[in-house]
C-alpha cells in the first residue's frame, strides 16, 4: 500500500455537503416565482390541518382530556418537527427511482456515505413554509397558555421541535429503506411519513390502547409532541405513564437514529447483494 499517493485533505474541501447543498439551492432559486408558490402551498397545506383541529373544538370542549389551546400546542410542536424533518430528508422518497434507474450505483462509486449523498441530492426548501406555520402556531400557543416557565421547560420548548424532527426524520428514512427490498414499497413508507404528521398532532389519549402502544414503543410518534407538551404544561399524564417519559425524547431520538443507521446499512448490503 506504500505506493499509493496519500489522500490529501485541504480545508477548502472538508465541507463537501454544504457545497452540494448550495448548488441545489442555486438551481431551485433559478425559478423564484415557482419557488414562492411552492412555499405558499406548504403554508396553506399545514394550516388546513390546524383548521381541522379547530373545527373539532367547535363541537367539543376537550379532546382526550386536553383543551383546545393545549392541543394546538401539540399541533405546533408536531408541525414544526414534521416541517424540519421533511425539509432535511424528503429526498429519501426518491430512493426507489435511484434504485430503479441504477443511479444508486453512481452513489456507491463516490467516496461518500450513500445516505448523506441521497439526502443532499436535493433540498426541499419549500418545506420552510411548513416550519414557518408550525413555529407561528407554537409561539402563539406558548404565549397564550401562560405557562409556569422554568429553565427546564424553556429548554424543552427550545429543543422539542428539533428532537422531534430527528425522531421523525429517522423514522421516514427507516420506512423508505423498505424500497431496497420492495421496489413498490413506497406507499407503505408514505403512510408512515404523512400519517405521522397527522397522528402526532393529537394527544395520544384520543387513540385506542393499541395505537397508543404503537406510537409509544414502535413508531415513537408520542415523543414528538405529546410528551414534550406534558412537560411544558406541567400536568400529570391522563394515562398515568411515568413522568420520566416526558423528558426522554432526546434518548428516544438517539435510539431511533442508531436503529435507522442499522436498517440503512442492511438495505445497502441487500442492494449490493441483489443488484438493480
Amino acid at each position, binding site marked *: *500500500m506504500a505506493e499509493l499517493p496519500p489522500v490529501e485533505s485541504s480545508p477548502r474541501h472538508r465541507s*463537501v455537503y454544504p*457545497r452540494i447543498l448550495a*448548488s441545489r439551492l442555486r*438551481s431551485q432559486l433559478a425559478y423564484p416565482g415557482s419557488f414562492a408558490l411552492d412555499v405558499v402551498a406548504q403554508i396553506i397545506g399545514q394550516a388546513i390541518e390546524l383548521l381541522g383541529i379547530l373545527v373539532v373544538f367547535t363541537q367539543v370542549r376537550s379532546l382526550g382530556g386536553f383543551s383546545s389551546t393545549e392541543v394546538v400546542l401539540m399541533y405546533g410542536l408536531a408541525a414544526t418537527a414534521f416541517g424540519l424533518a421533511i425539509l432535511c430528508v424528503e429526498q429519501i422518497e426518491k430512493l426507489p427511482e435511484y434504485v430503479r434507474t441504477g443511479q444508486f*450505483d453512481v452513489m456507491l462509486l*463516490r*467516496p461518500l456515505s450513500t445516505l448523506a449523498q441521497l439526502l443532499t441530492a436535493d433540498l426541499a426548501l419549500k418545506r420552510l413554509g411548513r416550519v414557518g406555520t408550525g413555529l407561528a402556531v407554537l409561539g402563539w400557543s406558548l404565549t397564550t397558555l401562560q405557562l409556569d416557565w422554568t429553565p427546564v421547560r424553556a429548554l424543552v420548548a427550545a429543543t422539542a421541535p428539533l428532537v422531534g424532527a430527528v425522531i421523525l426524520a429517522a423514522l421516514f428514512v427507516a420506512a423508505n429503506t423498505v424500497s431496497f427490498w420492495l421496489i413498490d414499497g413506497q406507499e407503505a413508507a408514505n403512510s408512515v411519513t404523512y400519517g405521522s404528521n397527522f397522528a402526532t398532532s393529537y394527544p395520544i389519549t384520543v387513540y385506542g390502547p393499541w395505537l397508543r402502544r404503537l406510537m409509544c414503543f414502535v413508531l415513537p410518534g408520542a415523543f414528538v409532541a405529546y410528551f414534550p407538551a406534558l412537560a411544558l404544561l406541567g400536568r400529570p399524564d391522563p394515562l398515568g405513564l411515568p413522568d420520566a417519559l416526558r423528558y426522554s425524547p432526546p434518548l428516544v431520538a438517539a435510539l431511533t437514529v442508531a436503529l435507522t443507521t442499522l436498517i440503512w446499512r442492511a438495505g445497502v448490503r441487500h442492494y449490493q447483494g441483489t443488484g438493480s
Partner: protein
Amino acid sequence: MTIIHTDRLHREFTVGTRLRRRRVTAVADVTLTVEPGDAVGFLGPNGAGKSTTIKMLTGVLVPTSGWARVCGLDPVRQRRELARRIGVVFGQRSQLWWDLPLVESFDLHGAIHRVPSARFRERLDECVQLLDMAPFLATPVRQLSLGQRMRGEVTAALLHSPRLLVLDEPTIGLDLASKERLRGFLSTVNARGDVTLLLTTHDLPDVERLCRRVIVIDRGRVLVDDELSTLRARFAGNRALVVELTEPIPPLLGLPGVVDVSVQAQGLRQRLEFTQAVNAAELIAAVAARAPLRDVAIAEPSIEDLVRALYATEDSPAR
C-alpha cells in the same frame, strides 16, 4: 502493485417471480490480473457478464463467491477508499449534476475527492484543452449533446488522478468524430502510464485503438485472455469492402484475397469479403481498375463475429 486481481470471482442472481424462481449464473469463476499501465478491452455479447464483473470490481455488487482486490483493496468492504483511487464511467448513467453547468459539476467532483486546488486546476485545464470543452463549460449538463456529456463524464472520472479508469460502453451512441476524439484522449492518458484502463465495448475500433490486451467473456466465462495482436492473427474475421458503382456491372469475381462476393441493387452495390492476405487499399485499387466507383465502405468484423469465431475454434460447449 497489481491493479486488479480476482480469484474465481463468481456471481449468481435469482430471477423470476416468487412462484418460479431460478438461479442464473452471470459470472462464473473469473480469474484475472491486470498490471499497472495496462489497457484491457473487456469484450463479449450482451448479457455475457461484463457489467456484472465491473460492478463487483468497483464495490457496487457483492460476489457470490471468490474474491477480488482492486488497488489492493476489497471493493465492497473498502468501497470508499477504493472510490478515491478509481474512476468509473458508465455510458448509460451520469455522474454529473444535470442541472448544473458542467464546470460546477467538476468543482463538486474536486471537492468530493479532496483534490488540492493547484492539482485540480492543472488536471482540469489539461482535460478541457485535450477534449476541447471550453465552448460548453458553462452550459448546464442537461443541455449538452451526448458527445459533450461523455467528454464531461470522462473528465469527472479523471480529476482525482485515479490509478484505474473503468469505462463501461464509453462510446455507445456517439457519432464517429466524437468517438475518435474520446479514443484519442484515452489513449494519450493511458500512454503516460499512470492510469490503467479497463473498458467494455461493442465497438471493435475502440479496442484496436486503445487496448493492448483483450479479455473475451461469454456466458460468464473467460474465453480468451490474450494480447490483441495475437488474438487478431488467430481469430479476426474477414473484412468486407462494400462498393457503390455508378452503373450496374456483373459480379466482381476473381479479385485477389476476395473469398465471397454478394451483389445488391442489381449490381450497383457489391459486397466483397476479403481476407487478411490483402489490404483494403490494394483491393480498392483493383476494383477501381475494373468498375466505375461512386463510393466505398469497409465493414469491420464485429465483436459478435469474433466471439463466434472463438467458439468455432476453441473446444467449448455447444451453444
